[in-house]
């Protein structure tokens, strides 16, 4: 009897595996696809090498004045010389250790929360106390620290202050508004609806402008509300309306059975919301919420129009120094890079959070 030993399976042909197959499948599968691939490569060819040549190969890194930059490349000396301005704005030079230590504290706190297991109560206390510490440190006027008015805060420091205060405060207000909109009490419901729809109908720039230019005219002369505080209040209430709508979409995604189950357990309204509905609603809206927060982070640069100097506005300030005229491009590229780092980390974090909270009940 003939024996037919099983042959080892042959590999699929070269055109069906490995990089060649991948290229054929993803880049060259149809005439349109081929055309777009060529177009894409051409665009990359036209843009990337010149940018690398400008930003790295021809760039100047050493020196301390504009005269160090002679060729056509980027002048990163400018960024180096103006780094303190980009990071801290007009914060007094001899007091820079204060914002620096606040930044360091943020990193330390983050590392502590991530890498040290347990100690939840301590962690929570530290996180709650941190804003107080940061405020005392940055603003000063106590414990022998000289006062640094908020008008001198600027650059990345100001961007982060506005974004974090906006995010942290708009979140609870947004939740209350979303609950209000779901409420069966007509006054609460209509007030919430009116507020949300009104705020969403007005551009942020208008809110900031009102807070900065119109509001002072209503106060008696000499009464001056801090400009940063005005902007923070404006941004917080503006953002709260968007957060509220995000959370409401979460409410609508929760099956009615969950409400009924909570009722059947005999939970009151607040217990039902806090223990059953909100945790699920927030979980499903994480991508939207983070999207809103990312756009808030970028919207902070609008405070430029009311004379606060966030990271983006510092480009204008630094590039108008008579010793550094014509450095706008370097400034904008640098600032875009910083913005990208922050927004990209935010979206990465949201991805991880989604995975961690995923209970697979889709």
């Amino acid at each position, binding site marked *: 009897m003939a024996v037919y030993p099983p042959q080892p399976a042959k590999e699929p042909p070269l055109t069906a595996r490995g990089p060649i197959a991948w290229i054929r499948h993803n880049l060259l599968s149809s005439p349109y696809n081929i055309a777009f691939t060529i177009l894409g490569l051409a665009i990359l060819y036209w843009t990337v090498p010149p940018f690398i040549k400008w930003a790295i190969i021809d760039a100047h890194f050493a020196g301390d004045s504009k005269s160090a930059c002679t060729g056509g490349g980027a002048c990163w000396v400018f960024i180096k*010389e*103006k780094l*303190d*301005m980009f990071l801290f*704005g*007009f*914060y*007094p*030079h001899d007091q820079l250790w204060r914002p620096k230590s606040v930044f360091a504290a943020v990193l330390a706190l983050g590392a502590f929360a991530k890498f040290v297991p347990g100690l939840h109560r301590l962690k929570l206390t530290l996180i709650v106390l941190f804003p107080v510490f940061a405020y005392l440190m940055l603003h000063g006027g106590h414990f022998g620290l000289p006062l640094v*008015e908020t*008008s*001198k805060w600027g650059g990345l420091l100001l961007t982060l202050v506005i974004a974090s205060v906006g995010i942290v405060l708009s979140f609870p207000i947004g939740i209350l508004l979303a609950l209000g909109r779901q409420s069966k009490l007509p006054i609460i419901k209509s007030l919430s609806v009116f507020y949300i729809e009104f705020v969403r109908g007005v551009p942020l720039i208008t809110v900031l402008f009102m807070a*900065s*230019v119109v509001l*002072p*005219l209503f*106060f*008696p*002369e*000499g*009464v*001056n509300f801090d400009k940063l505080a005005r902007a923070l209040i404006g941004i917080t209430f503006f953002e709260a309306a968007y957060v509220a709508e995000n959370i409401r979409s979460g409410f609508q995604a929760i099956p009615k059975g969950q409400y009924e189950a909570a009722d059947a357990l005999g939970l009151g309204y607040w217990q039902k919301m806090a223990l059953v509905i909100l945790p699920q609603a927030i979980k499903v809206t994480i991508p939207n919420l983070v999207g809103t927060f990312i756009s808030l982070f970028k919207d902070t640069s609008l405070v430029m*129009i*009311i*004379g606060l*100097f966030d990271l983006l*506005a510092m480009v*204008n*300030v*630094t*590039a*108008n*120094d*008579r*010793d550094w*005229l*014509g450095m*706008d491009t370097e400034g904008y590229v640098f600032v875009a890079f910083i913005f990208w780092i922050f927004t990209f980390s935010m979206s990465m974090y949201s991805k991880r959070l989604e995975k961690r909270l995923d209970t697979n009940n889709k």
Partner: protein
Amino acid sequence: MMKRLVKFSAVAALATATLAMAGTLDDVKKAGVLKCGVNTGLPGFSEADSKGQWRGLDVDYCRALAAVVLGDASKVKFVPLNAKERFTALQSGEIDVLSRNTTDTETRDTSLGINFTGVMYYDGQGFMVPKALGVKSASELDGATVCIQAGTTTELNLADYFRSHHMKFKAITFDTNDQVTKAFEAGRCDVLTTDASGLYATRTKLKNPDKYVVLPEIISKEPLAPAVRQGDDQWFDIAKWTRNALLTAEEKGITMANVDDAKAKSTDPEVRRLLSVEGKMCENVKLPNGCFYNAIKQVGNYGEIFERNVGAKTPLKIKRGLNALWTKGGIQYSPPFR
């Protein structure tokens, strides 16, 4: 509740009523610091150095005013303002003086509740061309292509000028100043036009500044002057005579370096009055003796301020032109200290 409301509106009304009479001088003395509104960034006029210190011609005026009022040029809080909020900031009392390259015009002076104190810089719209074009005067620009920023008075001035000289031009407009500069450098137009002070700043942004020239013609009047709130004559006087003191000091040759010498030895009656050796110039504006001396000693005279910020030794290299003293062919002029 109602009672409180009434009380509140009474206070508010009172506050509004006292607005006109408010003593800015007393406020500044009490605060110990002068609040000065400046531009967020204009090379040579108001700019921040790498340590965040403000400098520039508009900035130095505020330092001089602080020296006059408080005896210390460093006691200034600079409030950077954009074009839209500058007048509100002054009206609402957020700042005590607005020194932000603001053109003195009839409408602003009469309808905004502010007063302009005296011209610190005579500006006006000018033209810049590549040297290679061989143009020596704006009258040779017939048929030129001009790069301008859209939506500015610059555009209107340009049209007026060419029409009144029976010349033709083709305008290419851009949204921002940077775009205008880049287009001009790329050769998309023959001429770039904006305010003369801005032209010099723009020229330093170009890769080869020496290949371009600014033409001598100025086609519009832009007298840039500091402003104070209307209705406080005492403060207005102080602001006005601070500027005059800086000009008089230059006219009399008194500088930061020789002011002590002049105070001790000068026999010129006007110098003696200016430096409070005799007369009561400072007493007249309710300030301690030597008020103008402080400004000259700490900030310098007008000429020194000009040269330090925008003059030949700075990257801007602006010539004195109209801003030279009246004795030297310009129109900067101070009424006498008498």
